[in-house]
């Protein structure tokens, strides 16, 4: 059975491609922290290979190791041999899940609720989002926080409560028309993916993306009811659910209809571009999946490709911005210069480079929820580097990184603004009359 032994069924040459030269070690945040080979890319690959070779059973220690990996893919940038770690990592987590070694009633309940129920359907997600917003807006949250009731919760839950993101009052469909024409002459027709978590927490970034696209000669189609792209599932060992969602996406956005399909979330983009790999054994979808992969563009990538229409100079005071590279943009999609191009196009904004800009901030999807210690260590490191730049604004192109750094900035109590680069560009256009 394919799903029972994902690593054994994976093309062996993918496992074998690692020549264990060690050049991934200095780029791996977990190895950097522990100096233990098991916590390194080549160490993890050796464990995956041992399972594929039947030298190791998928054990609890193996599974835990696969969840200690951030999946930041920095190793893929460093790898001289071109190992496809992303594919290995997804299969290894699927192996961990298929083996059941991590099973506990609580874990299973959480996974069933989130992966199998919540993130499979937009309405459920929005309903939960609204409930959460009610909790936040009716003063309940601040009441609960002030009342000391939280002290009744176990430590971990209390920490999680503090990390709950602010839910937007209006979701993407309330902010963006199903079809928004280009301002001026239309050069392209694109589709905009509004995402799942992004839709609840950063619907404003979706609106900004749509506006920026129309300012740059794109007719924008934004269907109101959209699904999760499945990256959450693929990264958490549920490849079958990820396949199901991928097929629905392709059905909803026929790739032949658009010049490009735009995403503004790095983590999603990095997954969306590999549907053909995910659906390689689905002949009915494979050809369209290949076309789909070619049409998926990160918003920065797309703008750089079609040329950014520069916003007019304004006479406000100059601000400094620094740029944190989301792992799944710089490592997952090799997009590094385009977001900087976007930022440089904005008048009165000075870009200062962030030291270690490509080092993971610890968000890593839901990593900050399941590995809080490591995630916090990385967040602290990131905040320290941001501080050295003296920037008032930090820009980053992924909802996970935005949330993580916003939480860090809040904890520090400073005046740091954490924002998506596209929001800054949209702000600059807004000073223009429509």
């Amino acid at each position, binding site marked *: 059975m394919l799903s029972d032994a994902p690593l054994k069924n994976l093309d*062996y040459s993918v496992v074998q491609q690692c*020549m264990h030269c*060690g050049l991934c070690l200095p780029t791996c945040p977990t190895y950097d922290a522990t*100096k233990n080979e098991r916590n390194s890319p080549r160490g993890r690959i*050796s464990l995956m290979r041992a399972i594929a070779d039947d030298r*190791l059973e998928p054990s609890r*220690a193996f599974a835990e190791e696969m969840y200690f990996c951030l999946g930041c893919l920095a190793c893929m940038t460093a790898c*001289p041999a071109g190992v496809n770690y992303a594919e290995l990592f997804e299969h290894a987590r699927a192996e961990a899940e298929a083996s059941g070694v991590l099973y506990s009633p609580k874990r299973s309940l959480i996974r069933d609720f989130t992966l199998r129920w919540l993130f499979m359907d937009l309405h459920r997600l929005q309903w939960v989002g609204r409930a959460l917003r009610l909790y936040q807006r009716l003063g309940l949250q601040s009441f609960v926080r002030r009342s000391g009731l939280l002290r009744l919760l176990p430590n971990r839950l209390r920490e999680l409560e503090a990390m709950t993101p602010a839910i937007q009052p209006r979701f993407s469909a309330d902010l963006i028309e199903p079809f928004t024409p280009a301002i001026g002459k239309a050069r392209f027709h694109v589709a905009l993916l509004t995402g799942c978590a992004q839709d609840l927490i950063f619907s404003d970034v979706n609106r900004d993306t749509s506006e920026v696209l129309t300012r740059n000669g794109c007719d924008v189609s934004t269907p109101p009811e959209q699904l999760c792209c499945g990256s959450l599932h693929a990264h958490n060992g549920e490849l079958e659910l990820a396949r199901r969602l991928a097929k629905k996406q392709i059905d909803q956005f026929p790739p032949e209809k658009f010049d490009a399909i735009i995403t503004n979330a790095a983590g999603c983009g990095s997954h969306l571009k590999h549907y053909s790999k995910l659906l390689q054994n689905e002949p009915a979808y494979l050809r369209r999946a290949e076309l789909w992969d070619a049409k998926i563009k990160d918003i920065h990538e797309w703008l750089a490709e079609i040329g950014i229409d520069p916003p007019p100079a304004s006479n406000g005071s100059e601000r400094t911005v620094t740029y944190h590279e989301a792992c799944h943009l710089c490592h997952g999609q090799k997009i590094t210069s385009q977001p900087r191009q976007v930022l440089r196009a904005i008048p009165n904004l000075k870009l200062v480079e962030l030291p270690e800009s490509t080092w993971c901030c610890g968000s890593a999807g839901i990593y900050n929820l399941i590995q809080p210690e490591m995630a916090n260590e990385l967040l602290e490191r990131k905040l320290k580097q941001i501080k050295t730049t003296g920037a008032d604004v930090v820009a980053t192109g992924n909802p996970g990184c935005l949330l993580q750094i916003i939480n860090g900035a809040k904890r520090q109590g400073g005046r740091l603004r954490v924002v998506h680069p596209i929001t800054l560009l949209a702000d600059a256009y807004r000073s223009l009359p429509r």
Partner: protein
Amino acid sequence: MHELTSEITGRLQSILGPANVLTAKEDLIPYSFDGTAAMQQLPGCVVFAHTTEEVASVLKFANEARTPVVTRGSGTGLSGGSLPIPGCTVLCTVKMGRILDLDRANLTMLVEAGVTTLQIADAASAAGLFYPPDPGSMKISTIGGNVAENSGGLRGLKYGITRNYVMGLEVVLPNGEILWTGNKCVKDVAGYSLKDLFIGSEGTLGVITKVLLRLIPKPQAKRTMVATFAHMDQAAEAVSAIIAAQIIPCTLEFLDRMTIHCVEDYAKIGLPLDCEALLLMETDGHPAAVAEEATQMQNICREKGCLELRVAKDEAEANKLASARRTAFSALARVAPTTILEDATVPRSELAKMIRFVEAVARRHKLKIGTFGHMGDGNLHPTFLTDERNQDEMHRVEQAFREIFEEAIRLGGTITGEHGIGIAKKGFLPKFAGDAQMRVMRELRRALDPNAVLNPGKIFD
């Protein structure tokens, strides 16, 4: 065959603390190899030392218990030097990672064994100084490993290799004794130069715990050039002529046709593809000398009939051209599941002959090969592109290497220029070294490690 008992791991835990002794299978598998292709052996346990004293305690105990110890830094070696042996304790030095002193008056740096080569190069550079050895794995390789393997790199021709930058060593002997050899004096002839004995000893004579390094002033200017040739012989002649003109470039590297094509496919540098050989040349030093040498080298390449000559206009272009050589191995590694990199070395006068021989061997055994390397110092990297699951082909690869090494010896060269003997080339050493050298090496080893505790089975039995 050694067996690691729970009594042994118990003692190691009491010496180092339980957190520094790994015994679970999931912890050991990631230590069952180093950077060497197609070699694998599970150790008995892995331990981390943080101080010289801890290393001493581990060795003292291991010596008494007669249990083997294999020292390991970052495990990037290419000859199996830190490959475990059955039931051994892997003694890992990566947590001994402090830079202890940078002495600008004496131009030295004192570091612990686990500091990486890159950290050393960066610290030197930050002080306006230069640490030249740059092995391919320098981003992660440890200085302890560099010294134990006497690593080379791209700058060997002008600047030498690791040995030329070691002024002193702290070594723990197999019986747990701590020994210091060398000092900050440029001149020191008191007794045998024991440090030279430990450099390149591949973990068989002692465990290196601290290294005192020599630093030099940073060259002020650099010029980078690339020339392509229709025949490998012309490139080799150009190199000989450059040396004969008494120019010592800091880099003089070559790529063969196969490597050029792989590099271009992978890195898209814009290299000319219609050639048999590509030379990457760099000269550094005083700006006036650099300008003069660069002109001379260009003239020589033209005289030898080069097809195309490109001089980097600025640093960005220089880095781009230099990356052609630095990505050579990576580019080749992408082409096949298993990549076996060798380092046969000949006197540079014999280089063209050796390259032709390598090509002929590959043809004869129907093998895919890319060759690149340090043309200035005769150090070749014939790289076989193969698949370790194909036993028949692996057998032919072995046979091809045997022939290449024999030819290297016949031409007055060596079986390894910078990777070491380890376990990969053990079989070739006796013939290369001869009886007298083998006997002296054996006696030396026995004198220092009478109980055969350190890296047994490596270099020779």
